[in-house]
């Protein structure tokens, strides 16, 4: 049997609490990261991603404690991202039980950090997160993709989606893969929070351009979206947050749906 496709719940963590705000009016506290991590792990999630959005001086201490408690509670792999700027940030997270670090802004600012991280911790530890947005205007040097809405290219954003960089996401993925990225976490900013499906053209284009695993992210609303990410999108894994947090479609329901559709899934 080939490698199973992975279903990955994502937890946005702020000051040691899971938060999820985008497009949710009746926001309820999504809970403590360790409790949620344990729940997802027990439900059959294949992996977890934690994005730490804490911006403060006590960040490192909170992060250390959270990562360690999560590592103790679960026995599946997990990735930590958010403000990983250098080898020492990565070490803090990896030495406290995380399996991979996810890096976006720091890598765009200085791509050599990818090679450095891969050399110190191994390529499989280095996830490059790409936040991308569709662009319709012509740009001769960009790699374009045909979509139902016409020809587009994808622009990389940094600083949690606040900063457009002008960088072509597909070219960036190819470059980062060459520098030692072990995996890509590709989030569509157009789709994030919409629950109307992943950006399949984006996911597919990155998957076809690099020879490491690709995680589709942003837009999952129903189990069919996961199926599309794996089939048309050629993703190796699909990530979602709100769909799982609010138990609209718990992990076992999504995985059972995929299994019935013939996708290879860990039971």
């Amino acid at each position: 049997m080939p490698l199973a496709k992975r279903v990955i719940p994502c937890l946005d963590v702020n000051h040691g609490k899971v938060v999820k705000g985008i497009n949710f009016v009746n926001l309820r506290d999504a809970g403590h990261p360790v409790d949620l991590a344990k729940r997802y792990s027990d439900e059959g999630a294949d992996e977890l991603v934690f994005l730490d959005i804490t911006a403060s001086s006590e960040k490192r201490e909170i992060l250390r404690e959270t990562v360690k408690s999560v590592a103790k509670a679960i026995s599946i792999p997990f990735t930590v991202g958010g403000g990983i700027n250098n080898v020492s940030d990565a070490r803090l997270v990896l030495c406290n039980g995380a399996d991979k670090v996810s890096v976006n802004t720091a890598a765009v600012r200085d791509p050599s950090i990818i090679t450095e991280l891969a050399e110190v911790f191994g390529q499989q530890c280095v996830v490059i997160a790409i936040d991308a947005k569709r662009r319709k205007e012509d740009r001769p040097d960009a790699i374009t993709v045909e979509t139902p809405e016409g020809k587009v290219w994808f622009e990389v954003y940094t600083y949690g989606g606040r900063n457009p960089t002008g960088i072509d996401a597909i070219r960036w993925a190819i470059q980062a893969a060459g520098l030692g990225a072990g995996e890509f976490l590709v989030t569509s900013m157009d789709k994030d929070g919409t629950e109307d499906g992943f950006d399949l053209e984006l996911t597919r284009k990155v998957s076809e351009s690099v020879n490491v695993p690709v995680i589709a992210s942003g837009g999952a609303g129903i189990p069919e979206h996961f199926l599309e990410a794996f089939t048309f999108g050629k993703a190796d894994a699909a990530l979602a947050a709100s769909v799982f947090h609010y138990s609209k479609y718990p992990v076992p329901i999504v995985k059972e749906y995929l299994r019935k559709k013939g996708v290879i899934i860990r039971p």
Partner: protein
Amino acid sequence: MGNLLSLKFAFQKVGLKPEVGLDRSQIKNADAIAIPGVGSFQTATKKLDQVRDLIIDLAGGGIPVIGICLGMQLFFPESEEGGGQGLGLFKGKNVRLPNYVKVPHMGWNSLKIIKQNKILEGVNDGSYVYFVHSLFPEPTERNIVCTETNYGKTFASTIAKKNVYGTQFHPEKSGDIGLKILRNFAQIVAR
């Protein structure tokens, strides 16, 4: 990069009292030895230099030994990756995964049980476990292979010979199945 802390936590969950270290007297007094996968073959063999003879002696003397991922690869004398001498407990060598599949082999893949062993008690054929690796061992002795896994190529994913056990996957990251395997190891240690 082997995730030492997760392995430590997992051993605690199955009732063992793991200590992390390379101290000779610490190793001599241990009831069992676990060799996790940290970094490259070269980095690992360098670290092993100070305790290689001791581990070979203890393993020969019957103490339970488990090697995980790179730790299992270290049971073999050499690696295509280059860099130093492994323990040479088993004959064979470590070779690269074929380049027509995505490398590293990362994710959940299944075990085909070739030969039953105490370490696999309660583990069903086809169980999924978590892998992260770019090389795999090719043992000369085929009868030490307990499970095989296919990724571009069929390779030995669990090996066992007497008191020495190796898994190419990470039991500490493989959910309940992985914990079952570690619990089996803990029972072997308790005997």
